[in-house]
């Protein structure tokens, strides 16, 4: 860990950490642009940096957006990003009662506490998992990804059938291009530009950036910006007493959920809110401006960020679309995340973990004393903001491969994403499957080649069969639970 701090505290890395936290808070505050689209846009910016600085900056954007997302939820009742949706329920009500400062303050304190607790968890658990990960072969990787898909299907919220469609669609799109074993062209329709597959950055930018703007075009003019004067950020003793346990519970639960493939920070914030309401002596007051309804979810969504870094750093497996992009950034720099990362690139491994501690302190400073500046940013009209976001989407997509074809891919997926979102299709399972698809296919084919086409190989591998049994158990449980719920509602 000493090595980590010596890396994270160099002036250069401190600067990139601050830049990441700043941009993250900015995009968290501004509705209409999420961490995923921003990471895609800024991926080309990292090409000139060394891999440690790149990942420190990109991670800073990720957890910074979790901090910033609460500001718009509390002040404008519009979530800055998806994980802050639930903060609107009580945060906005607190603002309407003149307690906006307290809500923002507890969100920042909860985020800081959760960020630090989960950084400790990341620090302690990640090296342990690295040792376990050395036992992993293709069957185990296949099984863990299957578990991830099953968990995603039921944890994203909304229709599980739609989530299944999105996973299958993501798997299909990941197959476009050359087959990695035989070099057969798959679904390229004669386009030379599709030989290497649909570019991830172009697809993400289209699905999340362009489609978000198209959706916002429906609402333009109707959005009211309510920016009151924010004062009294420091919560009083009663607020702190009421928030301590929700912050601790949210931190632990968010961290554990972050570890699971497919769960992520959005699920963590919703589950935390539900848990706090169940445990509260006054559940009926939730939704009317209860501080626990802000403290718990805001802590949970921050803790999930560090949790999600563990499978990425130790197994080389992204659990959500954002960590998938972080993995892409590492690979672009010639660094393969996974069990060997700690021995081959200890400076990256420990440097990134240490940057989580540093970044959390920076974010507390950025979010508490500077809250007034972020509030002022909400005054920028969306009609001025969206052309700039579109411009960054175009230039970010183009810069990845210096190919205009990718811009067309972005536009196509933007329209497709818009049409999907209009019917409540979740896009996160699609991106997750798109990213994991090649590894999923590779693991399955390698497994069957290893076993001479004998699927019984899974029964000889205790970790793999355990994970597959867990997937099956989850599938049965969720189907049964939903069926039971439907029968009750009928």
């Amino acid at each position, binding site marked *: 860990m000493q090595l980590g701090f010596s890396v994270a505290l160099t002036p250069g890395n401190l600067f990139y950490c601050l830049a990441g936290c700043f941009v993250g808070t900015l995009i968290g505050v501004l509705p209409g642009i999420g961490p995923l689209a921003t990471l895609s846009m800024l991926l*080309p*910016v990292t*090409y*000139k940096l060394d891999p440690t600085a790149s990942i420190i900056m990109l991670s800073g954007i990720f957890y910074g957006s979790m901090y910033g997302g609460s500001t718009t939820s509390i002040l404008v009742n519009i979530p800055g990003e998806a994980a802050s949706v639930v903060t609107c329920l009580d945060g906005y009500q607190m603002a309407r009662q003149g307690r906006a400062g307290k809500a923002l303050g507890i969100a920042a304190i909860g985020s800081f506490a959760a960020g630090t607790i989960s950084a400790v968890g990341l620090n302690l658990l990640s090296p342990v998992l690295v040792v376990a990960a050395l036992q992993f072969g293709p069957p185990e990787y296949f099984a863990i990804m299957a578990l991830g898909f099953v968990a995603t299907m039921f944890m994203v919220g909304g229709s599980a*059938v*739609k989530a*299944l*469609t999105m*996973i*299958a*669609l993501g*798997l*299909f799109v990941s*197959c476009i291009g050359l*087959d990695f*074993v*035989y070099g*057969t062209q*798959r*679904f390229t329709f004669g386009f030379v530009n599709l030989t290497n597959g649909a570019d991830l950055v172009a697809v993400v930018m289209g699905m999340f950036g*362009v489609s978000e*703007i*198209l959706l916002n*075009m*429906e*609402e*333009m*003019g109707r959005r009211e910006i309510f920016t009151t004067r924010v004062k009294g950020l420091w919560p009083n003793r009663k607020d702190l007493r009421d928030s301590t346990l929700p912050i601790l519970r949210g931190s632990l639960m968010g961290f554990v959920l972050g570890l699971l493939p497919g769960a992520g920070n959005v699920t963590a914030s919703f589950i935390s809110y539900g848990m706090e309401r169940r445990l509260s002596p006054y559940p009926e007051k939730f939704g009317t401006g209860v501080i626990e309804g802000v403290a718990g979810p805001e802590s949970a969504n921050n803790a999930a960020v560090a949790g999600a870094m563990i499978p990425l750093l130790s197994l080389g497996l992204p659990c959500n679309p954002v960590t998938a992009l972080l993995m892409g950034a590492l690979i672009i720099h010639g660094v393969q995340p996974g069990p060997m990362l700690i021995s081959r690139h200890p400076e990256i491994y420990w440097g990134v973990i240490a940057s989580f501690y540093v970044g959390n302190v920076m974010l507390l400073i950025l979010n508490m004393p500077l809250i007034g500046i972020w509030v002022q940013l909400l005054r920028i009209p969306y*009609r*001025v903001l*969206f*052309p*700039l976001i*579109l*411009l*960054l989407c*175009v*230039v970010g997509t*183009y*810069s990845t491969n*210096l190919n*205009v074809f990718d*811009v*067309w891919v972005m*536009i196509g997926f*933007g*329209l497709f994403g*818009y049409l999907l979102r*209009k*019917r409540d299709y979740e896009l996160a399972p699609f991106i997750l499957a798109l990213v994991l*698809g090649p590894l*999923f*296919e590779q693991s*399955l*084919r390698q497994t*069957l*080649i290893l076993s001479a*086409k004998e699927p019984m190989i899974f029964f000889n591998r205790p970790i793999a069969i355990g994970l597959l049994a867990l997937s099956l158990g989850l599938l049965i449980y969720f189907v049964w639970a939903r069926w039971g719920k439907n029968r009750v509602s009928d």
Partner: protein
Amino acid sequence: MRSYEQVYSLFWIFLSIGICVESIRLQIWDSSSGPVAGFIPFLAGILIGISGVLMFISGWSDKTGKDGRERFWPEGKATKRIVFVLAGLCAMAYFMPILGFLITSILMTAFMLRVIEPQKWIAVILTSLSCCLLVYWLFNHFLEVSLPKGFLGI
């Protein structure tokens, strides 16, 4: 057709058929090496098809018919804005290799600022020029990304 959900499900079913047919053409299973190029796409196609059929059936049995009465496209002005954004993006992608990044981006930004929610010309010119020059400087000079140059060489 009872609902938009069923229109979507029909799209998934047709897409699934297309994917499966092409996957079979690519070959799904090889007797000597097991799964081949078409295996995962075929699996994906089957899953899309199953979801499509499930959604179609659930749309048919939806007795409320609520979904069928919902408006899909937003009211006139909003639809226009969406079309303008898409048209602006397509025009930018088409003209970027011809006019170059800088000129195309200034024109696209000005178009969006002026047409979507009309603003004063001075604001349009100042905002589009400053934003595009900043982005151009950041990517072309600072990050040394080779942005498309048009016939003017910029």
